């Protein structure tokens, strides 16, 4: 009977094998980390981080984050990809304060001439889902309530978020490349200077005076 081949278990060989296994593990981990990092979109991640956390008193839902660029999250690759929007934003009453206007009509016309009218809720927010209307950009827009009406001079090129160009800050950091928030009246809304009284959230954003 042939004797079984003897395994060399010298300390030197064991050390070398341990080193090789360690190197292999480090390589696998590094590759996994690199692949994971590359599969995320750093631009989208930065844009999402820039929105900050939810504000207390404004639960996640149709009344939250008024004035912010909705489609950063509400898109196929965003954090709210289960509720994607094609166009969404907020209509405020006046330029110097951020008080949402309830029941304002957002009248949209796309490049093919199809029209859609969205209505704002009591926080001033409106949103259009792909099932409701999927426009072909550019899109023209005007907002109206009662006898007040404002049309945007330029067309929306491709970003469905009003807040992508209309900044959330009351004083834009770069006045030459951004515009202030969307507003309908020159001053407070007649009859409801602080927004709808029965709104589940405060119609004034935390930034508003």
């Amino acid at each position, binding site marked *: 009977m042939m004797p079984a081949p003897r395994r060399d278990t010298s300390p030197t060989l064991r050390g070398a094998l341990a080193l090789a296994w360690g190197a292999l593990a480090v390589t696998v981990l590094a590759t996994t980390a690199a692949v994971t990092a590359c599969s995320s979109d750093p631009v989208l991640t930065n844009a999402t981080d820039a929105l900050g956390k939810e504000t207390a008193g404004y639960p996640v839902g149709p009344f939250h984050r008024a004035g912010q660029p909705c489609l950063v999250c509400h898109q196929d690759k965003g954090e709210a990809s289960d509720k994607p929007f094609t166009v969404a934003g907020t209509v405020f009453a006046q330029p110097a304060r951020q008080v949402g206007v309830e029941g304002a009509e957002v009248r949209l*016309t796309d490049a093919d001439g199809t029209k859609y009218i969205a209505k704002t809720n009591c926080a001033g927010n409106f949103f259009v889902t792909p099932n409701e209307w999927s426009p072909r950009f550019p899109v023209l827009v005007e907002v109206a309530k009662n006898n007040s009406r404002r049309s945007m*001079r330029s*067309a*929306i*090129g491709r970003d469905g978020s009003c807040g992508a*160009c209309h900044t959330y800050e009351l004083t834009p950091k770069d*006045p*030459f*490349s951004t*515009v202030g928030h969307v507003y309908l009246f020159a001053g407070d809304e007649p009859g409801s200077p602080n927004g709808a009284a029965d709104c589940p959230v405060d119609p004034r954003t935390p930034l508003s005076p």
Partner: protein
Amino acid sequence: MRTHARLLTRLAAASWLVGLAMAASSCGDVSKGELARQVSTRASPGSFRAAGVSTVIERRCGSLDCHGSLARNMRIYSSRGLRLPNEAGVRPGEGDTTIDEITANYHSAMTIEPEATNAVVAGGDPNQLLLIKKPLGIEKHKGGTVFRRGDDTERCLVTWLTEDLITPVDSAACARAAVFPKE
């Protein structure tokens, strides 16, 4: 000594003659009354402004969420979008597009790929330019297809890029392209 002096004199005279001959031959390439360089009428800055090419690019490409953004390589300035920083404090949506902004737009359009643009100005095919290929959707474009072959916008840009004394820019097409059909 005298022999050396004569030799030097002859050498000097010979070098003068050679020099004169070379000068004469180098000047002989240019005929009298002709310019030594070519002048192109294509993609001129004058037509860019006067025929309304800038207005078309402003309206079709220059909204704040597209090329009216500091994040774009080809930045487009306009009264309805990105403003060139100015001391008057004129902001997006105010006033008219300034001559400085039109000039900046011209530079944006011409320098997005300088060598290829030079080739077109020298007589090449304008359809090789990103300025045409991207909005047509032939080259990847984040803004998608902006115009189609033969429509007013494409005609405006291509006739500007190929303008000569016989075929000027189609300014009527530019005027139509500057207005959205549903406006």
